[in-house]
């Protein structure tokens, strides 16, 4: 059975074993990075130095999520062995995470519900007042 050949796109050449051993040095480095990023995200949440940005919810959330994504990528790429995986494994590894975003098509619904795509399509014909006629209760 030595002469078997699978689809060329997936077949790894030669008799070499599929796995590539992640060196210990790399494990330590990634671990260090992960812990550092964990500290970073807590630090950013409570002691972020730039006051003006700290006020900005959106920025802070994006920052926290970016750190989380970096951490996740480190785990996926090194610890879960995607770096050394075949192309097939890469496709499945990334495919799941990419496909997750199709769920967010749903957000179109919630973000556009208050919108009025059609002229005269008001929720209340009297609520479409220009915003500048605001009366403040104060």
């Amino acid at each position, binding site marked *: *059975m030595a*002469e*078997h*050949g*699978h*689809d*060329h*796109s*997936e077949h790894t050449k030669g008799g070499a074993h599929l796995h590539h051993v992640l060196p210990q040095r790399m494990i330590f480095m990634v671990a260090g990075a992960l812990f550092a990023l964990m500290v970073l995200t807590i630090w950013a949440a409570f002691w972020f130095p730039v006051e003006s940005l700290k006020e900005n919810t959106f920025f802070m959330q994006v920052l926290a999520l970016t750190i989380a994504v970096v951490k996740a990528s480190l785990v996926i790429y090194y610890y879960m062995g995607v770096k050394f995986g075949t192309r*097939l494994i890469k496709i499945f590894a990334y495919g*799941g995470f990419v*496909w997750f975003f*199709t*769920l967010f*098509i*749903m957000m*179109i*619904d*919630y*973000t*556009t*519900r208050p*919108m009025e*795509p*059609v002229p005269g*399509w008001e929720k209340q014909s009297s609520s479409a007042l220009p915003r500048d006629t605001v009366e403040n209760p104060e």
Partner: protein
Amino acid sequence: MSSTIIEQGTVEKPHSEKNYLNADHTLKSWLLTVDHKRIGILYLISVTFFFFIGAIAAAMIRYELTSPKGILLSSEVYNKTFSAHGIYMVFQFLVVAIPAVLGNFLIPIMIGARDMAFPRLNLLSWYMFITGGALISLSFILGGVDAGWTFYVPLSTLSENQISLCLVGIFITGFSSIFTAVNFVATIHKMRAPGMTWYRLPLFIWSHYATAIVVLLGTPVVAITLFLVVVERGFGFGIFSPELGGDPVLFQHLFWFYSHPAVYIMILPAFGIISEVITCFSRRPIFGYRFIAYSSLAIAFLGFAVWGHHMFISSQSAFQGIVFSIITWVLAIPSAIKMFNWATTMYKGSVHFSTPMLYALGFMGLFLIGGLTGLHLASIDTDIHVTGTYFIVAHFHYVMVGGTILGYLGGIHFWFPKMFGRTYSEFWGRLSAMIVFVGFNLTFFPQFMVGYLGMPRRYHYYYFAPEWQIYHILSTAGSSVLGLGFLMPGIYLTYAIFKGKKAGANPWGAKGLEWEKCASPPVTENFSEPVIVTGSIYDYNPEEDSKLYENEDDSMLSGRGGL
């Protein structure tokens, strides 16, 4: 006939009487088997059982509706009946039937493997399927479920019956199909025989691959959604409860995120079967192999972006409705591609009307109507009036029954000699195929009309509009015929399993590893020799084939068939 799938050794081995069926006769050998063929047979028995439960519920619904006043059942029982019909048919039959029975049986054989990649996981999925079915059945024994198979909140969270138990059952069944899909993906990717490249794969495999992808990416979403309903009922978590600021429409989004692709889980495998059957009985290479193969994948992926067309009037934003509408229109194209390619496949073929071919032709006609009436529902304006009526009931029965079940029956008849090594009566086969076709149309075509007239689905009487009765009587009459058509294969196929004539390895003269390299019924290891594939797929020659039959009477019911 020169076969270009090169084999080492002969096709027709002298009958070594050992095969997967008689390898061991104990009950334990069946219940603890890891042989994909035996698991396929286990699934065949169990889905048939669940199909008949669902069919009995359907019959009760139909007889109830013959009278505008609803004489047979009370409202409550009626609601539980149609819920049972939907839940059994969708979760316990349609979603699993073709992949679990024919897919399990054929995928390893078709790609030249000795078994699935994970045989024990395969057995586990069958047990989970049975457990899920048992829990669902238990929920109906203990009081029933009346929320319909869609379980829309807040009805399903407020309703006081066995919904939680039923949802747990569906959850487990869902994970059973996920494990099956994991198995399919790994098997199709890694277990192909040497030389079995992607473009030499039978289209059956392509469509099952697309199905497995949809199951993998869709099922967990509905699993978690139904789980949330369970915790909402159990603890009052209230993630969908409007009382707490939750949004009941979110449930519908998440539910249809799976349940629309689920339609493709049901129909894509049938596409695969039809591609095989049409090719075999036209005796010529399929037309547009790559277009059919890639249209399966296109359907699988595009199918994830159209769920909102179930919700055009559900108070989702109109903007999103329009987006979903246009994607749905676009999604009609891949199905059209398949349809045209199948029709063209018969061009210059050597067409033979055996039982599987009759089912396949019936499938094409019915799926055409089912698919094209889908356009009324894809169109965001026409959907308003007919959604939630019998129009939609008729539409999805044309797709699900006319598509999936006819495909399934065609597949069972096509591979029956391979599965059991015996042949059934071609006369009864053709007769029942025609009865199913006629009965089906009589059942569901009137429902289009009564739906357009405004009969809402899930009504258990219609005393306010007695003029609809005629359609319902037609439909019920048709359902009796249809029921007969479904019962007949059950009888003559069961008879044939034990008493049928012995079939050779390749009774249809078909191409493909399962026919040319594999005995009927297959041995436990599938192939007695190692398989190497060198030729192209579907390498038929219609001219030679037709010459063989030039002087034969080949009328529809002659009963001689291709056997």
